[in-house]
Structure formats: C-alpha cells, structure tokens
C-alpha cells in the first residue's frame, strides 16, 4: 500500500509532519518540512521566482488570439500572421506578440470540460475542482506558500480585479488567510496600506512596540500555529506599508508608463512588474470581461490589441531588466469560445478545445504545444486538462507538482496524484 493512502487514516503517527507544516506555515521553523521532502537544490532553484497571471476573465476567444482558423467556417473575419517562429501563426490582432514570440509557448490543446463561469474559474485558478469538504488553494496561494518567505516584507499574493463581473473565484482554501490574496478591487492601491493621518510615524511605531510587548508576554508558555501567524501578521505590517510605493505607478518613469500605455489594464500590469521586481511571488491582473455572446469580433477588436500590446511590452520590459528568466507570465481564462458564431455575431462558452500561453521562466519559448482540428471543434494532439497545466506551471518554477501539503493528517499533493507536467512546454 502506498504511503499516501496510509497517511489518510487520521492516525496519530502522522501528527509530526502536520506540526511541521504548521510551524513552517507560521514562520516558526521555516522550511523544515519542505527540506525533508525536497532537495536543497530544488529549494534554491525556486528562489526569486515570480508569476504574473494575466487572467482574461469571462473567456477570451482562442480563434481571435492564439489559435486562429482563417478561412474555416468557424474562423471569423480575422487573418493569421506569421510569428517570429517559422511556421507558427497567431491572430492578426496580436502583431506585437507575433514579433516577440521567442519567449512564449502557446498551448492549443486545453480540454477542461467545464463551460460555467463560476466553477470553471475555480477550476482554472486551482487546477482542480474543490471537494465537498476540501477547499483547494488557488495558484496564487500555492505560490505564495512555495515562493514567498515567511518573514517577507512585501505581500506574497496580490490580485487586481477592478471590474465587478466575475470576481471572487480566487481563494487560499485550506492554506488559510496567511496565503490569501491582497485583493485590489476598488483601486490599484491596497486598502489600509497607508498610515492614517491621525497618528504620527513615531506614535505608530511606539504603539506597535507596545503591542509586541504584550504579545511577547502572552506567548510565554503557549504554543500555537495560529498564535504564531497572528504575531507574524503584525511583524509584516511595516514592510507591507513600505511596499505602498510599489503600487504607486507615478513612481515609474514616464517613458516606461508610455510604453505600457494609458489603459487601466496596462497600468496594473506595470504595477505587477514593479511588484515582481521587488520579490512579490504572485500577482494576478484580472482583465474582465471577455464574455462576448454578442459582437464577438468587435469585442475582440477592443480587447486583443490591448492584451497584445501590454503583454508584449511586459515581456520586453522583463527581458530588459533581466527578470524574464525568473518570471513566468501566464495568460489564462476560465474557458475559450465556441467555434460556432451565433446570430448576434457572438461566440459562446467553450471548454473542449481552447488555448492559453506561458512565457518566460522555465518555458520553451517560441513554441506551440497541442493542436486542434481544422475548424477548432476538438483537440487532435496533446490534449491536457487543468491539472497538467498546473503541474507544468509548478514545474517551470522548480516546484515539485507532487509535493504534499497536509490537511489534518491527510496528504494533499499540489496537483492531483499522478499528474505529469508537459515536458514539451518546459525549457
């Protein structure tokens, strides 16, 4: 009987590993349980890595982005254009990405079988479906846990989602609030990150010192993971407040701001780069709302050029700063859009054959994985689901996709048991 199964019985002999998990999660004995499972070199490999997820909420069309089918009855009006990789073509709406395709791998063979916004968003943010009684952490929470440092002075999971449609599908699940997102839903500046006017710097510092004294007294003779996380949270306050400047886009040179462009999405992606540069391991920029049931082509004429420009600018900027080898840029939706064009010239939800892209860190650039048929109705080569996509992303960052977390005494691997990364996508 395998070890995994044996663990899942709730017996007390597994309490040790569970305690180790708690301890390290709370920053008490950082990394102890990780090192037991992973080699030191794998640990080192993860250091300084970041992910920027461009979340195309509502479902971007693969036909109008990464898997064009010009001339097919399903293809729509757009042409395809040659990318910098011979033989690889993407939609004419993405000329800038076509020109700098060298760092990007397009996956054209997602079959995720779920065409409902809510549950598909949960699936594509977590790599699997929640169980009735087990809420899985999303990619951000896992990467905050894996790539963040317990004592980190910057946030480790930042999520921009300023549009109101399709929000609230993220979450840290069983990893808890420590690894939950810093949600930016009202403005690009986090809530409660600025010192209020009614207290001076000195007083702010003094009252915190007083609090820390009470905390120290209370901790004597008491051991608890939750207690440690409480103290850790207050120790991080000053650092997080210092990171306020990272969210202030006016601190960025005007020249760079002009390169990204004036849109809200562009501004957020630029802030995401600032955050990654300062060691924030995971930033999601939610770009809603692609749900083009009516006027699909008009909608994509608006949204794809923006994506093309911002994504290409981001990749070039990361490259210029020497960050691209350590930063993975993921563009992903909850699903793609139907081959069929409806009578409102829209495309509807479609999860059986769609695309996403991975660029930068650990990725075989300038490549395409998987293939759909002539009309884009189905995957004909390299079909993968959410689990393998997530395993690939984790692997690209040097994280073992089969590493276990413990929920109670039950071991839960980062991706479903037996899930293999897609080797062809990895550098």
């Amino acid at each position, binding site marked *: 009987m395998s070890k995994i199964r044996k663990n899942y019985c709730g017996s007390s002999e597994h309490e040790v590993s569970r305690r180790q998990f708690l301890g390290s999660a709370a920053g008490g004995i950082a990394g102890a349980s990780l090192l037991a499972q992973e080699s030191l070199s794998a640990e080192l490999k993860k250091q300084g890595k970041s992910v920027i997820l461009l979340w195309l909420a509502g479902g971007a069309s693969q036909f109008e982005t990464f898997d064009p089918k010009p001339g097919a009855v399903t293809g729509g009006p757009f042409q395809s254009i040659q990318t910098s990789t011979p033989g690889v073509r993407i939609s004419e709406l993405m000329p800038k990405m076509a020109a700098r395709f060298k760092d990007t791998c397009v996956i054209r063979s997602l079959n995720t079988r779920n065409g409902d916004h809510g549950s598909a968003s949960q699936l594509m943010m977590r790599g699997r479906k929640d169980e009735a009684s087990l809420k899985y952490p999303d990619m951000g929470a896992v990467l905050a846990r894996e790539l963040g440092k317990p004592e980190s002075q910057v946030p480790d999971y930042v999520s921009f989602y300023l549009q109101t449609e399709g929000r609230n599908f993220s979450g840290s699940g069983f990893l808890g609030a420590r690894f939950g997102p810093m949600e930016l839903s009202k403005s690009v500046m986090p809530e409660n990150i600025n010192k209020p006017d009614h207290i001076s710097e000195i007083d702010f510092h003094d009252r915190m010192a007083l609090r820390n004294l009470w905390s120290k007294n209370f901790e004597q003779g008491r051991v608890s993971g939750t207690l440690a996380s409480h103290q850790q949270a207050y120790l991080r306050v000053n650092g997080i407040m210092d990171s306020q400047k990272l969210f202030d886009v006016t601190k960025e040179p005007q020249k760079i701001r002009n390169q990204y462009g*004036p849109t809200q999405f562009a501004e957020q992606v630029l802030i995401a780069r600032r955050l990654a540069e300062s060691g924030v391991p995971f930033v999601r920029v939610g770009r809603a709302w692609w749900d083009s049931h*009516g006027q699909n082509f008009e909608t994509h004429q608006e949204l794809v050029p923006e994506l093309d420009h911002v994504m290409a600018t981001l990749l070039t900027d990361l490259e210029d700063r020497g960050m691209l080898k350590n930063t993975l840029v993921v563009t992903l939706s909850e699903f793609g859009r139907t081959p069929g064009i409806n009578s409102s010239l829209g495309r509807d939800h479609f999860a059986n054959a769609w695309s996403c892209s991975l660029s930068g860190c650990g990725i075989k650039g300038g490549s395409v994985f998987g293939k759909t048929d002539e009309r884009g109705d189905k995957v004909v080569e390299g079909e993968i689901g959410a689990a393998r996509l997530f395993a690939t992303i984790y692997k690209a960052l040097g994280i073992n996709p089969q590493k276990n977390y413990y929920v109670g005494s039950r071991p839960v691997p980062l991706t479903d048991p037996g899930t293999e990364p897609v080797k062809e996508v990895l550098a």
Partner: protein
Amino acid sequence: MNYTSYKVDKNLNRQDILFTVARVPNSSKAYVAGSDFKIHEIDFDNPKPDLRSFPAHSSYVTALILKDDTLISGAYDGKLSWWKASTGEKIKTLDAHKKWIRQAALSPDGKLFASVADDMALRIWDIKDGKMVREMTGEHKPLTPNDFQSMLYACAFNKDGKLVASADKTGHIVVWETHTGKKIATMEAPIMYTWDPSARRHSIGGPRSLAFSPDSKLLAVGGTGTIGNIDHLEANGRIEVFNWEKSERVHEFVTDKSKGLVEHLEFHPDGNILLGAGGAGEGFLAFIDLKEKKVAHQEKAAMNIHALASTDGMKSLLAVGHHRVLHFKMA
C-alpha cells in the same frame, strides 16, 4: 404605403452569414456576400443552387455596389475589388483602407461611391476608373475616449449626392460636402454606444446605419440603446432622427418588440415612412411613421438582418443576414 401587408414569400437557408446585398434591377437576381469571403449571385425565385459563386476577399465581405455591369466589393481585408458582374471577372483590386471596410454607399447619380472603414477614413471613389476622388479624415478619432480602437461603421449619400454622412462607434456623426470634402455639420448619438467602465470595461454598440430623408432635411441614424450587460445585444433597436443643419435631434424611436442593432435604414420615397431593419438573436423590420412620430409597425424576421435592398418603392424587400435570405413582398 401599406406596411402591415408584407408577406415573406421567399425564405432561403444558407451556410454563410451575409452582410451585404446588391440587387439586379428589374429581376429576382441579386449579389450577396459575407462570411465565406465569396460573392454569390443568386436568383431568389430559383434559389438553388447559387447562379455563381466566386472567391473575392480574404475576410468577411461587407459591401457590394452594383452599377450596370460593374460590381464593386469591399471587405474586412481593407480591399475594394472591381468585377465584371456578368462574368465574375476581376478587373482590379485596391488597398483602399488600412482596416476593416464596414460599409459602402452608391451616389444617386451612379458615378461615385463612398466607403468607410476602421482606419476612420471616409473615402469617395470614382466607379469607372477606381480613383479616389476625395478623402475625409481627422474628424472620427481613431481611439475612443477610453483609449480603445474606434470604428467607422456607416455612410450614406443624400438624394442629390451633394452630401455624404458618416457615423463612428462612439456615436459621432458628420455630414460632409461630397465635392469639397468639407465638414458642414456634426451630431452626437451617445446613447447608441455603451462604454461599461466598471463591470466589464469594454464597449458595445455604435450607430450602424444612416439615411437622409428625400428632402435632405433629416438624417436618420440607426443603432441600439444603452446596454446593461454588454455581453449581449440586449437593448431594443434605436433610431434617432436629426435636423442635421441645426445638429439637433428631432425624434427618437425604439423598436420595443425587438432587440438588437438597426443595421439598415431607408426612407420611403414619399418621405413619410422610414424603414429600419436589423436584429440580434432574431431580426426585425420597423416602420416609422414620421407624421405620427411613432413606430407604426414592427415585423419579426427569422434571422438577424445585416443588410436589405428594396425596389419598387419598397414593394419588394430583400433582406440578408444570419444564415438566411428573406424576401418580403408588399400586398
């Protein structure tokens, strides 16, 4: 005119989505084109098979102009092509616009035609030699106020051809003097364009059709109303009528029985009736009585209508659109 007496006497299913139609005078023939990039010659009295089909463009074909034996097509590939209608022989092709050509209109004297495209230019062409005789630019901005690409959707001549109008996505409408290229009036129809700043952060809508009244005093603009959920074309069709000389909106009409875009507008020669056609999930015809100032009659259509061509004082209406051709005949 008896607008309640229309009957659909031809209802033809098609594989393609049709965006444009040009009728052959005094016959049941027409040229249609759309999503398969081809031009099809059809006879709607004897629908199957098409009389002729020939590849014309590398994207959706959105404009057809027929003058005698000259057929001109325009498409999302930005090109205008001249064809000998009787043979399907290509005469020439011009890189007419940098972006999608959205609409074209023939001048009443048959010598010129206008094209509009997403490069935000209105261009006037000589039918015979294919020369561009005039270009109107600069008035329709390439970007919306929110820094997204705008689109130039519609154009129309007045009855004597001295005026030509154009309308862009944001609802900005311009009347130009055809022979000088001078802007002589502008109007706004902002309700037709919905920018959603908070929930979805993109836009939908925009005027799609224009028509001058026979006395040239009025300019009708067709589109849709303000949309709540911009995932769908869920607002009713909308027509605004301007006294363009005063830049003043004098009427607004809503197709309360149907949703979608008004993609075709046409005044009855007597000037009292205005026909709007369009749709979303399904299509509609709306007849507006300008004396009564109301939508006098609405007719559902079995498809979203993208274009319509009438003959004989609107006694025959040939509508094309989503996988279908419909012929409406007045009793």
